[in-house]
């Protein structure tokens, strides 16, 4: 008799997709997307406009039917009874009734959600809209509409919050408030799936990031891993001798000549060692500093902008931390 190892058990992930695809005629909006969002994390879903982010989110919520693949929210497929009971969402901007006040819009939505109306005051205060809640939605600024959309997403006190570009239309203070709200919700145990093309926003609030380009997930990683190991930037003379010394010291794969200096793929902790080696070799070190890639740089490397070569690069990079040396 053969022992069969038990299936790994545990609560299902808030979001799991497998081979998720969506075609609109000849256009492939989402292509075999495997995505997992773990409980309690803030997951950044990054990608340029038209990359397939919103189509993916719509499929998660059952608004759009996948052409292929599966979607599970807390283990339940779209359309299953109660699938969205613990899910709040703001998809592609707020959409409410212009002839109703902000508060009345939330009353309508609370009825739809089966949520007690006492929750309305709480969410209005969370998004700092309580003072204008009695005004008609049509009179709201874009930022206020966005806040109301987030309030609507919070009505059910969700365990999973799906936010598509939640800071659109917000002023800098509003954006900071929104980031703080997201972090607060996450610290209270809410899982957040944040779709954005604002890299600074993602960098500041997300634990993990998935980058999507042309419908495909090109990488999925923590923000720190995605930015990669920091490197050293050295301006030293003469450059040729310095390059030779660096290759001998660190290995040829870790040394690149860029813009009249050296980029060394080593931990910044190695700065003193590198400096000593150069000085002992009689080289004149003019500048030596750690250099971290920001998320924007990584993003452009992964998505390749909009040109075909970039797309090709993206496909070559594949999953995992991109190789830059």
């Amino acid at each position, binding site marked *: 008799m053969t022992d069969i190892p038990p299936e790994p058990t545990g609560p299902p992930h808030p979001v799991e997709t497998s081979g998720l695809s969506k075609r609109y005629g000849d256009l492939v909006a989402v292509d075999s997307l495997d995505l997992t969002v773990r409980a309690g994390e803030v997951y950044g879903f990054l990608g340029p406009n038209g990359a397939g982010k919103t189509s993916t989110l*719509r499929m998660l*919520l*059952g*608004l*759009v*039917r996948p052409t292929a693949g599966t979607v599970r929210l807390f283990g339940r497929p779209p*359309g299953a*009874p*109660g699938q*969205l*009971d613990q*899910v*709040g*969402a703001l*998809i*592609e*901007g*707020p*959409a*409410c*009734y*212009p*002839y*109703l006040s902000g508060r*009345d819009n939330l*009353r*309508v*939505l609370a*009825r*739809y*959600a*089966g949520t007690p109306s006492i929750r309305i005051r709480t969410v209005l205060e969370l998004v700092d809209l309580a003072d204008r809640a009695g005004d008609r939605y049509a009179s709201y600024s874009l930022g206020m509409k966005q806040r109301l*959309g987030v309030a*609507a*997403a919070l*009505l*059910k006190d969700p365990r999973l919050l799906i936010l598509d570009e939640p800071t659109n239309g917000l002023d800098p203070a509003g954006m900071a408030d929104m980031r703080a709200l997201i972090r607060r919700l996450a610290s209270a145990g809410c899982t957040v799936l944040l779709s954005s093309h604002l890299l600074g926003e993602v960098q500041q609030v997300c634990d993990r990031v998935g980058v999507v380009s042309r419908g495909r997930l090109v990488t999925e990683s923590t923000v720190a891993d995605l930015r990669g190991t920091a490197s050293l930037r050295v301006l030293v003379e003469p450059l040729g001798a310095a390059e030779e010394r660096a290759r001998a010291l660190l290995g040829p794969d870790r040394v690149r000549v860029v813009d009249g200096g050296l980029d060394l793929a080593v931990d910044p902790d190695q700065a003193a060692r590198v400096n000593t080696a150069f000085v002992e070799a009689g080289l004149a070190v003019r500048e030596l500093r750690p250099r971290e890639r920001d998320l924007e740089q990584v993003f452009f490397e992964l998505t390749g902008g909009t040109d075909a070569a970039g797309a090709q690069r993206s496909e070559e990079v594949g999953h995992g931390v991109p190789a830059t040396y």
Partner: protein
Amino acid sequence: MAFRRLTDVLAAELVKLVRRPANWLLLAVALVLSLTFTYLVPYAGYLDGTDPAGGGTGNVPPTGPGSGGVAEAAGDGLAALLPAELVGNSIGGLPIFLGAIMLILGVLTVGGEYGWGTWKTLFTQGPSRLAGYAGKLGTLAVATLGTVLAIFVSGAAASGLVAGVEGQPVHWPSPAELAVGVGAGWLVAMMWASFGALLAVLLRGVALPVGLGLVWLLAVQNLLASLAAPLLDWVAQVQKGLPGPNAGSLVAALGAGPGTPGVEQVVGGGQAALTVAGYLVGFALLAGALLRRRDIL
């Protein structure tokens, strides 16, 4: 649980119905149209002496949704304005003019969700698409019943006023006649509203469904009835299966004047009622199936 969710959705939809100014405007237009062409214009014609029954030499043209045609057809303008004719007068406009307003109501109720992009907001709150759509249909049922009742009440007031001013005896229709009349009016009104809802789902919006719906209701139906059917026998036969002529037959069977646009008894009242009910169910099911199946973009 599912029933409670459904009642919650219906309650939410009723709030939207009641708070939307455009719906009150439609009701006001329906009442003004109904009273103007059913009572005001015929009564003015009667007073002016242009009505045959009033001793004049002219005719009251069959202009309106109600009994302008009744006056002409009955040959007695005043009698057609009295309470005894309340049922026919109240539902006579539903095959065409009031039907057009009901169609617009159906389009606005469902198509507005496409126009504002609010389907996604509603459906991400949790209820199924069919629950949301059922809420819409329930709301339309309430709205159309309310409109029909308002037309009956305003018609009763107008006819009672005419009877009082003219010193005529007041004979109201029996409760059973009133109930049948209200029911038939509701059926026709709901059929047009669900037709509007279907167009809204089909075309995912408001403007085009309203435009095409009105072209069908106000133009194509009339052209078929007045131009094509007398010339082509097969068109006349096809007419007997179309929603407009059946609505006209139903209200004609209940006393609406045959001179009123759209009111003509081309089939029996029972068959007409079944056909209209069939269209109502068909429109509702088709729209529900489409809404459930298609992507919400």
